[in-house]
């Protein structure tokens, strides 16, 4: 097999801070896939995507082609495509690369996906904290419309398609697919119960397919280069490339496009991101964004390819490929408190377990962190987490509750010593340092007052 040329999705992408224009994109083979796709039947496009085995890049890894086949035929209702660019998961910033640098790739992908599923309208939902991304996408859509790639007569084919950019307003839960639908409709970002599934009843109760930005950006590559070529990277479990974001205690926080089958977690951290900063050692890594279980620094956790299956076997999830690296000085109680504050703050509050439970989890972690914890609190934390959710627990409408539970349980499982130390030592090191600082300040004030 010939060596795969990298990058693929980001091929020809301008440096960060610049957007690829329509002319640049076209010069790079842009919109050739659309031309090809227009000559194909919708089912042929779906079949290609199905044959590649492309899995959703939003986190769950559901096969995109399979999802597309769930759209019921001849309902008399319009079909919609909703592209998920909310990217609010702590540790994730991969979709941003597409949105800001190669927006036309996403526009072309959205048009092709619309064609495949029988939609004439796509909404691209972009997190409100990406104002540059929103502008880039709007400019790209305007350019595409002016060039006849969008509108009532796409490339003279008589087929109609349009893409609308929708800005989020700062809620993590609007990245959950049905929460996003509620938000696009102008409502509160409340996820919806299933059934009905969005493919049957989504936007305005019409069939709707929801895919992540990176998932959709792969579609032009598939249509343009064909199934075999697209599958030349990755493996049967995780075909194609993956965009990965690396952040935390590394020398070079970065985003990269990798061949998931040929790149291990260790390589991502130590080669691509330049290893642990300040000459320190690795303590822990969260491989898939804040919602997945944390992994300890162990060969069996690190020396695995970055495929869905391999990372799962290692005890975590590849998720949305937000690799968060923690060095040896990290207090895991402190890190978990940060996450619990996030999930408590972001729970939409619909479901009893998540609404009440995320607050309880945060309070428990905070108590341990602040030196008020008892030894029983560590087990209590673990058990309350079970009450709230867990991988596949299905106790709530969406997975946010489970996303709070997975880190909690894994932090305790792998780093119980940190929790027990915080109980025994009167608080986490971060808390103690902060307290010492405040105490010193008070002491100096007190001295000042005496004079």
């Amino acid at each position, binding site marked *: 097999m010939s060596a795969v040329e990298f990058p693929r999705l980001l091929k020809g992408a301008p440096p960060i801070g610049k957007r690829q224009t329509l002319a640049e994109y076209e010069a790079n083979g842009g919109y050739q896939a659309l031309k090809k796709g227009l000559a194909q039947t919708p089912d042929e496009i779906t079949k290609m995507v199905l044959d590649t085995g492309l899995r959703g890049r939003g986190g769950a890894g559901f096969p995109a082609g399979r999802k597309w086949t769930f759209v019921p035929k001849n309902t008399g209702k319009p079909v919609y495509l909703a592209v998920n660019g909310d990217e609010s998961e702590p540790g994730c910033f991969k979709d941003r690369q597409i949105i800001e640098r190669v927006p036309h790739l996403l526009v072309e992908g959205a048009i092709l996906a619309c064609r495949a599923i029988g939609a004439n309208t796509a909404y691209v939902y972009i997190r409100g904290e990406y104002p540059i991304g929103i502008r880039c996408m709007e400019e790209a859509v305007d350019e595409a419309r002016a060039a006849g790639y969008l509108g009532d007569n796409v490339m003279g084919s008589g087929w109609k398609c349009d893409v609308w950019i929708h800005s989020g307003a700062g*809620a993590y*839960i609007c990245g959950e697919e049905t929460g996003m639908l509620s938000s696009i409709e102008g409502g*509160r970002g409340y996820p919806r*119960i299933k*059934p009905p599934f969005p493919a049957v009843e989504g936007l305005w109760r019409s069939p709707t397919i929801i895919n992540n930005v990176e998932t959709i950006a792969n579609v032009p590559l598939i249509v343009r280069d064909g199934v075999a070529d697209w599958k030349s990277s990755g493996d049967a479990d995780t075909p194609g490339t993956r965009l990965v974001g690396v952040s935390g205690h590394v020398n070079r926080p970065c985003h990269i496009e990798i061949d998931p089958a040929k790149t291990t977690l260790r390589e991502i951290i130590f080669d691509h991101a330049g290893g642990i900063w300040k000459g320190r050692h690795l303590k822990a890594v969260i491989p898939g964004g804040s919602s997945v279980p944390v992994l300890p620094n162990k060969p069996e956790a690190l020396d695995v390819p970055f495929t869905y299956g391999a990372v799962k076997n290692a005890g975590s999830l590849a998720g949305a490929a937000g690799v968060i690296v923690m060095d040896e000085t990290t207090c895991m109680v402190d890190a978990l408190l940060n996450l619990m504050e996030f999930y*408590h*703050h*972001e*729970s*939409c*509050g*619909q*479901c*009893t*377990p*998540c*609404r*009440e*439970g*995320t*607050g*309880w989890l945060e*309070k428990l972690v905070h*108590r341990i962190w602040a030196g008020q914890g008892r030894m029983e609190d560590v087990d*209590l934390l673990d*058990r*309350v987490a079970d*009450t*709230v959710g867990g991988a*596949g*627990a*299905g*106790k*709530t*409408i969406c997975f946010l509750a489970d996303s709070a539970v997975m880190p909690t349980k894994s932090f305790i499982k792998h780093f119980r010593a940190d929790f027990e130390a915080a109980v025994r030592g009167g608080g986490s090191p971060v808390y103690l340092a902060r307290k010492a600082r405040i105490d010193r300040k008070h002491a100096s004030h007190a001295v000042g007052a005496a004079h």
Partner: protein
Amino acid sequence: MPKLTIDGRSVEVPKGTTIIQAARQLGTDVPHYCWHPGLSIAGNCRICLVEVEGMPTLQIACNTQCSDNMVVRTASDKAKRGRADVMELLLINHPLDCPICDQAGECKLQEYSFRIGNDRSRFDFPKVHKPKHVKFSDKVMFDAERCILCTRCVRFMDEIAKSDELDISNRGDRNEISVKRGGELESPYQMNIIDVCPVGALTSQDFRFKSRVWFLESTHTVCSGCSRGCNVTAGARWNKMLRLIPRENAAVNKWWMCDEGRLTYTDVAAADRLGAPMVRKDGRLVEVSWDEALAAAAKGLAAAGDDLFALISARLTNEEIWLASKLCDALGTPHRDTKPRAFGKDDLLRTGDGNPNSAGARILGVAPGKGGAGLANFASQNLAGAALFGEDLDDRPEAIAALQKLAFVLVVDSRESETMRKAAHVVLPGLTAYEKDGSFTNVTGRVQRIAPCVRSPGDAWPDWKILGWLVAGNDRGARPKTCAEVFARMAAAVPEFSGMTHGMLGTAGLDVRSAAPAQGSV
């Protein structure tokens, strides 16, 4: 038709039926907060968890559809543990102010906590605090701490009242129900949110702190506000009516009622209720015995004979209207009429007709007969007398002036009126619809029982008894002893009611027989 097993018992249900509905069919109540049979499914409270064989996780019974050969366990250890967990979480931030909460005694948190909860909590932190006395309107109060965010109230306003005045603000455990744009609730159906609220978060300004609900004497009756005849349960204590709440009747009002109807009970305790019969002597109405008043009424009616104008209220019961008509028949007068009464009107319940028994009056022929005068023209007909059954003419001063010219005016009513004070010769005190037996026929032709919720004030009589005695005259044996007896006599005479009895009307009522009575009907 999927056939499934729930707790070892098999049941067959139409396609699309959810587990919670199928269980109800078997008489099994799966705990639920957010699910309400009249609202869309929200699936947010998670208390309805049940075990479904073959499913790795517990399922919510309210949104899981039955399928063939499904095996459901509502009371397995796993299901019980799942629900107890949810129960614990529901209570961690709940204020537990049952001792001062109006809902206590009919609160689903209390009920399910007792039934399925643990007896202690593992939560030992300060609770989340929220506003406790939020005025949603002059009718509804809100306590955000007691709210379990089931969204029933929001869904009621959106889906039933069709007035999306409520919303949720903030996020997570800071969530609060709020009136949009900070205003007050305006919908004429807003008080239903108090009923749908499974906890004490929404309380009635009208009923707040009046009584613990377990002290209430409950009576199933029908609202007298308009011709819909919404089914209600009345609550009374110390012979005082304290509230009406809607009672489910799929054929009439489903689970709802309007606010105006809900507050009709306040008429019962009006300051100007009549408590004794009166006869005019030397120009003044003086209290007399029933014997004397009835004799004076009979004499006056006989003297007016076929020159009597009878105004028969469509707020009276079928039984009473039938007796009043019989009285007119005996006197031979064609001058009969009802008085229209305006009311709110919309597509939900309110009919626009403030008379609860217009259909009954129509069936029983209360309208000017051949050559007869009606409300509009009786004044110009040179009549000899008038009888007002359950009505006054206070809103028509010129009609009172016309009455004053008549030789005899009888007023049977439950409250004092200008009409009575100025024109009556004999006043017989009757009762409100919440104090007597009887039946109304509603706008769609449903015949429904009403029942006394409190005892009558003073020496007032039910109108059916007054009319029954007037019709019987000197024939003591013909005086009805019960309203049921009057109904039976009416049912024998009027085809629309044929074959019906009070007992058969039950608590849900019956539709009037079509004009040609079904043959061989029993």
